């Protein structure tokens, strides 16, 4: 379904082209801010991934290494779950853009549930590693692994809270179709945690030490 320019518009000034927010760039300031924020997040996760890569082979001999603890089939399923949550997120955005609030709520809740499944899998993984003797203070591998994946898990958890807030707003009728950009901004954040996991899954889990 086609959403017309006026439905998604913030424009009130007749001098500004229809469909454009009344800003100097003609773009939504919130969206510009979100992209700038995501650009800066690349540096945060770049730092954490680099530290992991530098530290993972530097632990004391005879301590736990990635090969001792990683469960690739389990983490692959977790990765698949997070990847599919990106699909449900984009379907939620498509739903609100055509004014289908029922489907918006279904897809937002599905995305939150998939995210929660991923976080639950991560908690299971952490407790399994802990029971095998890998703690944050065990060695350099443990420290860098838990900090990197823990930061990512915290981002996913924050994303789930944002999704539940969206769902709550929609249920209370406070998320009309002309505020679809709110869903888009949460979606951008959600997709970002997904792409970060794509990199972590490859660099941390799949590439052998």
């Amino acid at each position, binding site marked *: *379904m*086609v*959403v017309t*320019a006026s439905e*998604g518009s913030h424009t009130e000034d007749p001098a500004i*082209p*229809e*469909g*454009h927010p009344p800003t100097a*760039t*003609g*773009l939504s300031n919130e*969206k*510009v801010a979100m*992209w*700038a924020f*995501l*650009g*800066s*997040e*690349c*540096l945060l*996760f*770049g*730092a954490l*991934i*680099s530290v992991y*890569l*530098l530290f993972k*082979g530097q632990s004391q001999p005879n301590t736990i290494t990635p090969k001792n603890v990683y469960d*690739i*089939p389990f983490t*692959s399923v977790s*990765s*698949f779950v997070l*990847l*599919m949550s*990106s*699909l449900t*997120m*984009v*379907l939620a955005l*498509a739903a609100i*853009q*055509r004014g289908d609030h029922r489907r918006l709520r279904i897809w937002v809740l599905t995305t939150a549930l998939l995210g929660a499944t991923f976080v639950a899998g991560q908690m299971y993984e952490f407790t399994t590693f802990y029971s095998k003797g890998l703690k944050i203070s065990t060695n350099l591998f443990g420290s860098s692994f838990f900090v990197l994946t823990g930061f990512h898990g915290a981002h996913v958890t924050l994303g789930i809270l944002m999704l539940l807030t969206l769902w709550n707003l929609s249920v209370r009728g406070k998320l009309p179709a002309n505020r679809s950009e709110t869903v888009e901004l949460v*979606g*951008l954040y959600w*997709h*970002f945690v*997904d*792409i970060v996991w*794509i*990199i972590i*899954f*490859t*660099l941390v889990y*799949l*590439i*052998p030490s």
Partner: protein
Amino acid sequence: MATEAEIEETAFPDGGAVVAHATDEAGAPHPHKHPTEGQYVLIALLLAAITGVEVAVYYISALGDLLVPLLLLFAIVKFSVVVAFFMHLRFDSRLFRRLFVLGLGLAIFVFTVVLTTFHFWSR
């Protein structure tokens, strides 16, 4: 090289919903198309298939030195597809693309320097 306007016309010749506006290279506003829901599902299936191949490749010990470049290639493809289609960077304003690429490029540059400084590549 195709302009953004041309890319938008050719990316989804069989459809796609007009959902927002951006500016073309001349700065003029024009409507642009996002993928349809069916196309999103197809993209997700592609991503799932790549993930499956990625994990399968991990278990093929015969690949030897080819394993790491292959895994990196798969990750880059998945990353790019999500950013381009799910995050709509292929269709949105160039300013968003520049902001994200600036952060990503800076991260890659800075941390390549860091890893090189600590002799990571020669280990």
